[in-house]
């Protein structure tokens, strides 16, 4: 048996959102230390938000992340409304749903096309794709067509694809311009065949790393990202206000982000968790068009997070088309809060998984805040999967492998670890906000 010893350090992993690194220690052919380090600097939002007007919380907390800003707006709106006992109208919820659908399309497409496709085609970058190769030429065009369709949907409904200015407490400043609905329907319809190609590509992808773990996601009847209790793959149903108490906060002295366990083990949130728990509530058109692909779920293969994201793009398109083709939006007055103080919970599904905003409001001023983001929740699971991946690879090395791995083997290992991390689609900007931490 080989006895590989290696200290491996990755800095500034590319093709992810924000900054992260990895320190890995291998002794006698086994991983003895695996530290996935979120190295993004904190901006201390949960401290800074204290003393600010509750009505301003969604716009302020959106600045936690440029990429996921609209998800933070939705979670903060829900938390403030929950605290002040405001019930948004069905029309408001429909418009918010369209904003999130736009985010899902744009954000998943960015991840799958720009971050993951180069791994699938053994290229450094999507920009290196060969425009003369018919498949790569098509994928290059698909990339920007699909992303743009999501952007335009968010602009139509939210006023902007990031930091949407139109959604407010209980309603919207402005309704979608009905003359611009048809062009958005046309863009979404045109993007649909590209998404089916993307699903086929990831269905055929042979990457596999399987480990049974708990999956957590919100659940509702129509795969919307805004409502419902949290459910887990072990059959537990958790109301929003009890979610935090089900998790244990873990301090990692090498990472700027907080980590969490569920029932004393790592767990996963995100597209794979959602599809594992909710595939029967996908849009009927989505279900009809990809029956064979959906049979792969529930899945414990972490790389199926990519496939699940591709399916969610299709679902977001089908759901949005169904709404836009049948709905006329009418002006509604904004609702006034029935109280000025309270405690509120906003739990939604951001593209990368469960996003939790807990706000305490006193006389319309934020007194306290706690925010849990998906990447923080996935952090320990990422480490466990890296450990499994590396140990499997070391086990499969020829017995005569020298203790000091060759440069080629090291590069292969680094590459495979990065592909695994990218499959989680981590977002470091979100992960490095702030939670109360005491370092010993």
């Amino acid at each position, binding site marked *: 048996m080989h006895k590989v010893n290696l200290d491996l350090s990755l800095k500034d992993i590319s093709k992810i959102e924000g900054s992260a690194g990895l320190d890995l220690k291998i002794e006698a052919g086994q991983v003895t230390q695996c530290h996935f380090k979120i190295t993004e600097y904190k901006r201390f939002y949960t401290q800074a938000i204290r003393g600010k007007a509750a009505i301003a919380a969604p716009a302020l907390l959106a600045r936690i992340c440029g990429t996921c800003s609209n998800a933070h707006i939705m979670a903060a709106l829900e938390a403030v409304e929950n605290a002040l006992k405001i019930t948004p109208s069905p029309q408001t919820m429909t418009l918010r749903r369209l904003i999130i659908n736009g985010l899902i399309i744009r954000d998943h497409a960015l991840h799958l096309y720009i971050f993951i496709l180069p791994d699938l085609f053994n290229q450094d970058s999507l920009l290196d794709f060969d425009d003369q190769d018919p498949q790569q030429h098509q994928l290059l065009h698909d990339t920007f067509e699909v992303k743009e369709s999501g952007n335009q949907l968010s602009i139509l409904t939210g006023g902007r694809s990031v*930091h949407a200015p139109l959604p407010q407490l209980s309603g919207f400043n402005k309704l979608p311009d009905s003359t611009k609905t048809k062009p958005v329907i046309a863009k979404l319809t045109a993007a649909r065949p590209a998404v089916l190609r993307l699903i086929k590509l990831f269905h055929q992808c042979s990457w596999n790393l399987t480990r049974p773990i708990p999956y957590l996601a919100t659940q509702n009847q129509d795969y919307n990202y805004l409502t419902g209790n949290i459910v887990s793959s072990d059959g537990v149903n958790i109301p929003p206000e009890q979610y935090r108490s089900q998790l244990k906060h873990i301090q990692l002295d090498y990472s700027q982000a907080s980590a969490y366990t569920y029932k004393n083990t790592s767990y996963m949130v995100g597209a794979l968790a959602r599809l594992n728990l909710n595939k029967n509530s996908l849009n009927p058109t989505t279900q009809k068009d990809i029956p064979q692909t959906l049979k792969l779920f529930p899945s414990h293969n972490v790389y199926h997070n990519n496939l699940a994201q591709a399916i969610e793009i299709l679902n977001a398109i089908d759901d949005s088309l169904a709404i836009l083709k049948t709905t006329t939006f009418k002006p509604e007055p904004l609702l006034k809060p029935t109280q000025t103080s309270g405690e509120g919970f906003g739990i939604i599904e951001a593209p990368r998984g469960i996003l939790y905003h807990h706000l305490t409001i006193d006389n319309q001023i934020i007194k306290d805040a706690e925010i849990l983001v998906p990447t923080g929740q996935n952090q320990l699971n990422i480490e466990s999967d890296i450990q499994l991946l590396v140990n499997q690879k070391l086990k499969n090395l020829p017995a005569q492998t020298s203790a000091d791995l060759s440069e080629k083997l090291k590069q292969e290992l680094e590459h495979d670890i990065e592909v695994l991390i990218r499959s989680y689609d981590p977002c470091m900007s979100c992960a490095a906000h702030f939670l109360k931490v005491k370092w010993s």
Partner: protein
Amino acid sequence: MTELFNQHWQAWIKHFDFKYAKIFRPVKTLGSMDVAFVEGAISSVEQATKLKQIRSLAKQLVAIGACAIIGQPAAQRNDFDPTRLQEIQPILEKFHYADKVQPLADLVTVDHQIPGCPMDEQKFLDYINQLIINFKNE
């Protein structure tokens, strides 16, 4: 900026070589560049060192967005009261944060700014179009 690629990538890849964009490809070591676009405020000595390195390698440096130009909202900790400062102090020390968050212009010469959060798209496009004209004239 990545989202502007949706409508402009075919035109831009004819004119620009995107050399050190970590979102597109691995970056091992930085080399010389015509234009460096820098987002974000400076929170640590390490970041300040990297910014100065980028400045030394770039003919032009462009600050993108509110964080880079005025430091906010990243710099909100600069004005924290003693209670909040005490709460975050262990993290500032453990991860070697700078005493204050700074905008880029406090540390290096900034040749151009694209303001806003998110940045003003039209101002960015105007700047890019001017760059293309300038490159053609060189």
